[in-house]
């Protein structure tokens, strides 16, 4: 029985030597090719055509691919575990990547922080992580967009469209960026009518199709008539909500083909622009700032075209608000304001502009949001 699968010692040694040789070669060859160009690595937590978060990043990567001298390596469905460390190591050692974009939030701590100190000549650009100069390595940078502003604009469209004065939000996990989106969505709607409330349901996972559909149905059962979300792939939420006759606001990417009549607008990433700038500055011999942020004005985010159900009044307020956001210094959180458990989060006269770093550690839901983070 065992003799059938027995490998002789000689062939084993031969095989191992060959493997070692191949490893040595492949780490040398891309290294020499690097002089001519730049290998850029992208890692996604899900499939790169999910109508959402990963697709937005992959569209950015596709734009980078077109730049002369750039070799693109991509890997999708990389879990936020030690797997991502292995993937990054292999991109560095085998493909010779010198610039890596690990795009999921959970990749940062401890995975990027683990790998980065071992490869000081490689630049790690993480989406959304809170990089700080005194705690984290210099070859790591973080970038993100003020997409809360997009959810605020979504909220304006929703505030005009809702008849029940109830809008809903299907959220994945209660992290600061999600909380900011929920709060912005409600405050946008309240700028239309301060009576509006926003019901939030957390699914606990970035991608869990059945739970997202159940959450959307539960919202519709409560009479919610405009729904948006912050999950990795909004397709299920959009289709289920539209199936129940609710209006939808998109997120991450343009989902208007999924519900052409009921799609109001959507907050989209514009990573193509951001990544192209970053890669070109590296190719030109420059560097990328460790801490990069931008909003509508900087071309980090964009809004989907307004749908057919958007009224003229809504359109006017939407465009006017968008114009004032473009000017910069726009604040969603303006005092006096309380959270939904009664704690004061902003005193009278106090306001948090979009660029305020303290918004990136938001841990509350404002008054009018029905739901809790824990």
């Amino acid at each position, binding site marked *: 029985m065992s003799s059938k699968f027995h490998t002789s010692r000689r062939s084993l040694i031969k095989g191992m030597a060959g493997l070692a040789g191949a490893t040595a070669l492949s780490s040398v060859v891309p290294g020499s090719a690097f002089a001519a160009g730049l290998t850029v690595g992208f890692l996604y937590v899900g499939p790169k055509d999910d109508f959402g978060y990963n697709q937005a990043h992959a569209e950015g990567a596709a734009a980078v691919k077109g730049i002369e001298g750039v070799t693109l390596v991509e890997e999708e469905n990389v879990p936020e575990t030690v797997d991502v460390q292995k993937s990054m190591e292999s991109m560095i050692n085998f493909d010779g990547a010198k610039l890596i974009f690990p795009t999921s939030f959970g990749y940062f701590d401890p995975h990027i922080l683990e790998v980065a100190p071992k490869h000081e000549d490689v630049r790690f650009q993480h989406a959304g992580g809170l990089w700080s100069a005194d705690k984290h390595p210099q070859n790591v940078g973080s970038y993100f967009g003020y997409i809360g502003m997009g959810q605020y604009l979504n909220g304006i469209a929703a505030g005009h469209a809702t008849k029940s004065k109830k809008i809903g939000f299907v959220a994945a996990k209660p992290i600061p960026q999600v909380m900011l989106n929920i709060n912005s969505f409600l405050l946008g709607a309240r700028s239309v009518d301060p009576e509006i409330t926003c019901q939030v*349901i957390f699914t606990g996972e970035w991608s869990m*199709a059945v739970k997202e559909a159940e959450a959307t149905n*539960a919202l519709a059962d*409560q*009479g919610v008539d405009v729904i948006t979300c912050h999950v990795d792939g909004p397709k*299920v939420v959009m289709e289920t909500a539209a199936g129940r006759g*609710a209006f939808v606001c998109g997120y991450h990417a343009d989902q208007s083909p999924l519900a052409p009549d009921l799609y109001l607008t959507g907050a989209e990433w514009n990573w193509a622009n951001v990544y192209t700038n970053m890669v070109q500055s590296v190719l030109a011999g420059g560097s990328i700032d460790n801490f990069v942020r931008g909003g509508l004005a900087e071309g980090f985010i964009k809004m989907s075209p307004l749908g057919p159900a958007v009224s003229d009044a809504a359109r006017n307020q939407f465009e006017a608000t968008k114009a004032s956001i473009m000017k910069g210094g726009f604040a969603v959180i303006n005092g006096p304001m309380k959270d939904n458990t009664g704690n004061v989060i902003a005193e009278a006269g106090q306001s948090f502009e979009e660029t305020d770093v303290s918004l990136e550690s938001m841990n509350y839901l404002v008054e009018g949001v*029905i739901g809790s983070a824990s």
Partner: protein
Amino acid sequence: MSESDIGLWAVPIAMLGGAIRVSTPFIFVSLGECITERSGRINLGLEGTLVFGAMSGYAIAYETSSAWLGVLGAAFFGALFGLFHGWICKLPKVNDIAIGIALMLLGMGLAFFFGKPYIQPVAPDLPALSFGFWSDVPQVQAALQVNVLFILGLVLAVAIAWMFKSTKIGLTIRVVGDSSDAARALGISANKVRLFSTAAGGALAGVGGAYLSLYYPGSWNEGISSGQGLMAVALVIFARWNPINCIWAALLFGAAGALGPALQSVGVSSGYYLFYAAPYVLTLLLLIATSSTTRALNGAPGELSISK
């Protein structure tokens, strides 16, 4: 929209709706596994079959514009997976559980590979029947949108229970499952019976997958199953290898799964992670409550590798 305010009634209504919407894949996979296990084999690969069924069903429905052809296609590919499992397990010294795990990974890998072009397109959905016409509460009407496959699942459960009890085929499967020696003495080829039982189980799991992608949640993506195929295999043990009990178990799981979102929607929002664990806690409690210190695994087929 004219949704009326139903307050806390939303929770039981959502659980009813959830039981009907979410349970169907559980019903099909657990019925399929029930047939397979009654013949004395365990096919743990049904998670992979479910995912491949979801993908192939969606792809075929999209290419042919017919959701029902998608369901048939999913059943066909599910049967192929089952045949493959049955064929390998026929070889000597092969462990059916290990092959099942390998097939689970293979099914998911193949589904992800072939499914890439079908994540974006929108395929036709399976039709639903409205049983809520007697109510003027829109939430009740929405909860009672019942898919034809759900009804088919109920009918099938009764039919399979009848088959095991009073037909020759059922008796043959049970003999093979309880004692290969007895089957051999009767001149029955245990391997052949198990091959076809596993194929039938695979076909049903494929249909369960088609329900996921063609009705609820109603689109193909790689996270569509999130372990439902594995849960359904566990349900069979929970249901004590009885097709009718599989239905109750599946309904219970569907209802418990709807509990978390429904409670959050009426304002009970703290500790939602615990509510999401409700189906699993429930399973544990029921298994403990129905366990016995004197008998081991009541109703388990004698030839099953876990009861040997």
